[in-house]
């Protein structure tokens, strides 16, 4: 292999799968190269064929036609050599949960034939890089999600590969761990000239890549350095603010305007992207300030072009009956001194907060901060060890069924019955919530129309793409028009377009007076919330509107921190303080 030649070459690759009686084309006519010493990013919505491409590159799948040449080996002739020499980290890296951190490392060092003499230095490097040093003897199952991903990466790196293939390494990982993972990856590129192919659902991560491939429906839509993508959008990105109006209110007033490709709530305003050649509309009370374009702007525009959907997802929301003027109390959720123990471990340490009607209330925190435990207690899935918990005016512990009839719940796994069709899932949940007769029929029609589920009405839910599963899960949670909606990481693993659409619906619901409680890992989504609670190590670290929380992280070096920055700064400070104290 000549020096300077690309590490990975993909030529006109096509891959199909047979499912039932249909042939599904996962990837077609894809060509690209991955050079040494650079990061190549693979981006695209769910079901675009990213994972199939990754597996093709790792020699775990063979193309139907075309060629994959990695490190000089053609995957058709020498798949085994590719598996031997390419570092590949699958989406869910298979750590052995019953093995300790060190044992996992040893296993992969042995499998990769790392010489014993080289190991101490290598381990020291990896443990320092990943910060896993103090946890060598801990079982992998006891690590947090972020630490697991870092350990997975460390296992892939025990023998430094020249070509590294990473499939969504940062999905479901909190912002701190994400930053750390990227630091490791960047180190590899600059330090040892490794070539890296990485797929991701976080568009801000694309900015860290030298070259980006935009994949959609199995084809490469576009490729180039992220700067080129940005350059195309020059002069079309603005920040809209209005005196005294909330971001969400501004977004709602922009919704009907076809001039915008994209409108996302950010801090106290809305970030908008203008259609090419469209004139800037004049709107009373709203000021537009030009801002530098981002990669995400180009991404959204390219995908909207490729798959033209309904102009504004939020416009399709049918107003719910009743509205905010019903007799429900002003304070919808009240939590006082809530605690939960697992054995001697205190997962939640006496937290208190209130949520008012019609609010979007965010629960943020790193992996293992106690978010999920709190959430499960709020939904009545886990009895609290002590403290009081009132939902919609009833004590969850004494009148659980009454409380449950007023709330909707959507879990991060989009828990639906896989062997049942879309219609059967909706029919079941509507009946389980006691809907009957004409009202039930009317709600089912509503779900079909508003969530555009008609084309999939009789399809089993296992066969739905992730974005549609999420829609259906939301429809099931809303079928009985709950007063409170619980959303547990509702957008985990979902692509940016589906995420925008989802938040459009949530905003509309909040406008109608539905109270929404949400956990998320996407800090940009925290901006959608009216109130936030930031949890760390089982207690509340900060509470208040997003702007207030951002303000707490303001320093000389960081005059205008993003939510991401604030999150990291606050949690790092708290963890350091707690460790020092203990």
């Amino acid at each position, binding site marked *: 292999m000549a020096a300077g030649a690309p590490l990975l070459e993909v030529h006109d690759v096509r891959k199909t799968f047979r499912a039932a009686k249909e042939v599904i084309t996962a990837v077609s006519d894809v060509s690209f190269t991955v050079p040494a010493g650079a990061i190549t990013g693979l981006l695209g919505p769910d079901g675009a064929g990213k994972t199939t491409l990754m597996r093709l590159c790792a020699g775990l799948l063979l193309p139907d036609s075309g060629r994959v040449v990695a490190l000089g080996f053609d995957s058709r002739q020498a798949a085994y050599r590719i598996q031997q020499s390419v570092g590949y980290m699958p989406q869910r890296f298979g750590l052995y949960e019953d093995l300790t951190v060190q044992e996992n490392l040893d296993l992969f060092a042995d499998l990769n034939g790392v010489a014993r003499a080289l190991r101490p230095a290598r381990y020291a490097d990896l443990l320092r890089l990943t910060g896993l040093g103090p946890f060598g003897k801990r079982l992998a199952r006891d690590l947090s999600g972020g630490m697991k991903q870092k350990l997975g990466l460390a296992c892939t790196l025990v023998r430094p590969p020249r070509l590294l293939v990473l499939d969504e390494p940062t999905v479901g990982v909190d912002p701190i761990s994400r930053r750390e993972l990227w630091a490791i990856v960047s180190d590899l590129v600059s330090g040892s000239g490794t070539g890296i192919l990485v797929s991701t659902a976080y568009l801000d991560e694309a900015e860290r890549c030298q070259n980006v491939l935009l994949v959609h429906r199995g084809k490469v839509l576009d490729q180039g350095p992220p700067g080129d993508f940005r350059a195309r959008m020059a002069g079309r990105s603005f920040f809209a603010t209005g005196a005294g109006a909330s971001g969400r209110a501004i977004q709602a007033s922009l919704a009907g305007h076809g001039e915008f490709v994209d409108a996302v709530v950010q801090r106290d305003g809305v970030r908008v992207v203008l259609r090419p050649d469209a004139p800037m509309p004049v709107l009373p009370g709203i000021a537009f300030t030009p801002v530098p374009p981002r990669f995400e702007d180009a991404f959204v525009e390219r995908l909207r072009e490729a798959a033209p959907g309904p102009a504004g997802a939020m416009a399709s929301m049918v107003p719910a009956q009743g509205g905010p003027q019903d007799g429900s109390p002003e304070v919808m959720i009240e939590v006082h001194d809530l605690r939960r123990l697992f054995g001697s471990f205190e997962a939640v340490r006496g937290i208190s907060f209130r949520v008012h009607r019609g609010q979007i209330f965010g629960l943020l925190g790193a992996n293992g901060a106690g978010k999920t435990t709190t959430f499960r207690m709020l939904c009545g*899935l886990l009895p609290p060890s002590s403290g009081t918990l009132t939902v919609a005016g009833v004590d969850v512990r004494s009148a659980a069924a009454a409380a*449950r009839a007023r709330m909707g719940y959507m879990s991060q*796994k989009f828990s*639906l*019955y896989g062997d049942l069709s879309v219609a059967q899932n909706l*029919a079941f949940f509507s009946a389980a919530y006691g809907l009957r007769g004409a009202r039930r029929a009317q709600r089912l029609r509503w779900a079909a129309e508003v969530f555009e589920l008609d084309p999939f009405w009789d399809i089993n839910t296992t066969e739905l793409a992730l974005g549609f599963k999420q829609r259906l899960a939301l429809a099931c949670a809303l079928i009985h028009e709950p007063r409170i909606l619980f959303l547990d990481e509702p957008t985990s693993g979902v692509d940016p377009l589906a995420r925008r659409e989802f938040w459009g619906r949530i905003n509309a619901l909040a406008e109608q007076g539905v109270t929404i409680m949400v956990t998320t890992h996407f800090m940009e989504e925290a901006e959608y919330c009216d109130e936030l609670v930031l949890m760390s190590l089982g207690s509340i670290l900060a509470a208040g509107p997003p702007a207030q929380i951002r303000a707490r992280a303001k320093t000389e070096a960081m005059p205008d921190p993003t939510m991401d920055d604030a999150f990291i700064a606050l949690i790092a400070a708290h963890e350091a303080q707690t460790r020092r104290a203990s």
Partner: protein
Amino acid sequence: MGWYGRVRALVMKEFLALLRSKASRTVLIVPPLVQLIVFSFAATFNLQHVPVVIYDQDQGGASRELIARFAGSRYFSIEKMLASSQHIARMISDKEALLAIRIGPRFSQDLALHRSARVAVLVDGRNSNTALVALGDVNAVIQSFDNRWAATHGWHAAPAVLVERAWFNPDLRSRWFIVPGIVGLLTLVVALLVTGLSVAREREAGTFDQLLVTPLAPWEILVGKAFPGFLIGTLEATLIILVAVFGFGVPFVGSIWALYLGLLLFLLAAIGVGLAISSASATQQQGLLGVFLFMVPAVILSGFATPIANMPRAVQYLTYLNPLRYFLIILRGVFLEGDGIAILWTQYVPLIFIGLVTMTIATFLFRHRLT
């Protein structure tokens, strides 16, 4: 009436989840029927075609008459007539023959002189039950030879003779005993297949949480989960009973109401056990292990193949916890002995008790399983 609509929806959902996928439809229907047929043919204690070798040292008329009786019996199949005794030991230990019969050199002569004539029988005792049954069959053949010989050659009769009769099963066909047992066994397997993993599977998929946040009360979930088991269990059991009666000719002399009351109560207990195992498990693997750990002893300690009366006292007490024990008594009582509800009520009560206890445990565990 709110609960009615909710429970009906849950029942519908359970049926769809069980029957919409081809794999689970197949697992529920094909193995029980195939096993009924294969096992019913296989599981019999009656011997047929037992391989026998005969060494006839006498070669007289009387010995030939005796050999003819063995040849004519369907219990035996004569593998070889031996000319010397040297291979007998080897053929038995190599399992070429189960029995060796040696007719003494003066057999005909002794009989002619009204003396007892000597016949030696050697049997492979490795399977002691088979050996015992085979020896019984040999004795039956020789007894019939004796009776005939005594009658035709003017011998004294014995002072008393046994006149044996077996009630309920005059030919002592063990298939009549085994097939109703298999009906019970397969009903248990079906009930456990339907319920044993159902909660654990939903827990793994996260849908159980989704159920728990709806207004469905735990008892409503219980009814929804148990009902499909009742319906599928009853239908399959009916099918199996029909095959047993019309396919295998097992007599059915008792009350059909007594049988179906017993079936429903047994399903109540079996489904209760299945749901309790399932809701105690966090994963399907644990559920599967639990089902195995219940099913294996339940079969052994039911009296299916070996009588409970032969077990040590302590183990006999243990069998009182086993729902299959009661159901087998009901099945055999109704099929062969013509029992009705009045006789069997002592079997119904424990089934109700087991069912109520296990279902209560399952209902409690839905929400209170330790995490």
